[in-house]
């Protein structure tokens, strides 16, 4: 692995977000939607808390992260640039990692801009910082997991819209299988697996401010798993 090549891929991909108006629209939509959902409840409750906001974040991510990853590979496949990219002296792993990191960086830009929210609240009242920090860390891990999944799905199709919709469905499945509703309705041994696999349960742990190494390891494993699948999907062109 060469960090120089990963960095080169990363920079190109990151710039690609901002080379089109989509990035700005995306950031705008993200901020408007999150702010609106937040302030809707904020003035009703009159409490300086971000709990409702943080519990909404996974649902917003469900639609936003697929929009970040949908073009990562499908656009390369549609336009044929994948043939240029993968015949350059660069390893598939390096390209996968560079692209994934660029999508993560773009998500971080969004989260960074949304920090205006806790800052505003902190000014208006006394804000308990623990859950906010935990919530943001949880959001980064959850978002990264969605992005790895979405990136893999994007490598399976030439069509951005298909990649977008499939990623929503897949993310949704992974998010809800850990929820109480699903767990209570399946057989106990399946419930045990689901409880571990569900993205949502691990998020709510971290969002409460409880950072458990098991949750972190879970997210890192999830991300690694889908990045490896992503590399495998590219290797599919080498099938005999």
């Amino acid at each position, binding site marked *: 692995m060469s960090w120089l090549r990963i960095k080169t891929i990363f920079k190109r991909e990151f710039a690609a977000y901002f080379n089109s108006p989509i990035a700005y629209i995306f950031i705008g939509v993200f901020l408007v939607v999150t702010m609106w959902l937040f302030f809707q409840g904020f003035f009703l409750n009159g409490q300086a808390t971000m709990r409702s906001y943080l519990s909404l974040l996974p649902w917003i991510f469900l639609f936003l992260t697929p929009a970040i990853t949908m073009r990562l590979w499908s656009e390369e496949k549609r336009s044929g640039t994948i043939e240029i990219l993968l015949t350059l*002296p660069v390893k598939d792993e390096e390209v996968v990692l560079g692209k994934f990191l660029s999508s993560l960086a773009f998500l971080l830009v969004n989260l960074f801009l949304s920090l205006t929210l806790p800052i505003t609240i902190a000014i208006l009242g006394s804000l308990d910082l623990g859950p906010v920090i935990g919530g943001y860390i949880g959001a980064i891990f959850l978002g990264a997991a969605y992005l790895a999944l979405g990136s893999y799905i994007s490598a399976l199709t030439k069509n951005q819209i298909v990649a977008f919709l499939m990623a929503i469905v897949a993310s949704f499945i992974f998010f809800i299988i850990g929820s109480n509703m699903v767990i209570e309705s399946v057989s106990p041994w399946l419930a045990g697996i689901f409880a571990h696999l569900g993205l949502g349960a691990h998020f709510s742990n971290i969002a409460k401010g409880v950072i458990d190494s098991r949750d972190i390891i879970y997210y890192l494993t999830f991300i690694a798993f889908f990045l490896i699948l992503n590399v495998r999907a590219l290797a599919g062109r080498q099938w005999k």
Partner: protein
Amino acid sequence: MIKIENLKKYYGHIKAVDDISLEIKEGEILGLLGPNGAGKTTTVKMITGFIAPTSGSVKFNDLDILEDSLQIRAKLGYLPENNPLYEDMKVYEYLLFVGKIRGLSKEVLIGRLKEMVQVAGLRKVLKQPISELSKGYRQRVGLAQALLHDPEILILDEPTSGLDPNQIVEIRELIKKVGQHKTIILCSHIMQEVQATCDRVVIINEGKIVGQGTPQELTEAATGGDVMYAKIKGNEEAIISSIRELANVKDVSIADKESEDIRGYRIDLNQNSDIREELFQLAIKNNWSILESKKEAASLEDVFRNLTKK
């Protein structure tokens, strides 16, 4: 330099490439000629390592495309079919990106970039987004990308498709210019292109090699002789029968009819024979008028049609 052995690529039951063996010498410009869908592009994709063959091997000296893919890719410059480009980038951004991935140091990269700007004539468009370029400029950017690292081997898949005649001439000249010191594989379905640029031609049809040699060898092998065209005023039957009796004439047929007593004749001759003088004498003797006469070069086009239209 490049050795391709028993290369096959099957997609299910479809044999895209069916047992192709080839050797390409250093410094050679090899043309892969064939109708659309013959398997040229699939062959090239296997040579670049983009897809793996069902069986067979591609070797660059002692490097194998499956084992040493990265080392081989570093030596290759590749212009894929339809010249895909990152539309959202500016021309210089794109070339810098490719150069950095290829691991060129900053000084080398800047030097090479300047050279590419000159060779491919990109000065005017360097700061333009690729999406706004004309087809001719896009093609030049694609070529600059392939040439940026001064590769030993250049692989070009249909480099002039979709260009206007002036641009085609420009691109061909560019290929010839850079081809003096490189090994080149050029895919095309256009005969004139291959005839104009290549040292050796391999004709592919339905995944198989159906003919190969220099452009001259191929044309001679296909017609087995020379062809002459003459437009003569006089009695048709008498003309045909008396020309047939001349030495070296294999056959005479009517090519076109201009008027009642003027006909164009196609005369098939033995190889390297010339009957212009005898024909002239014959005409004087019989009181015919020769209005036109020319030696017709059998073109690669005929060969191509003969070999691929079965």
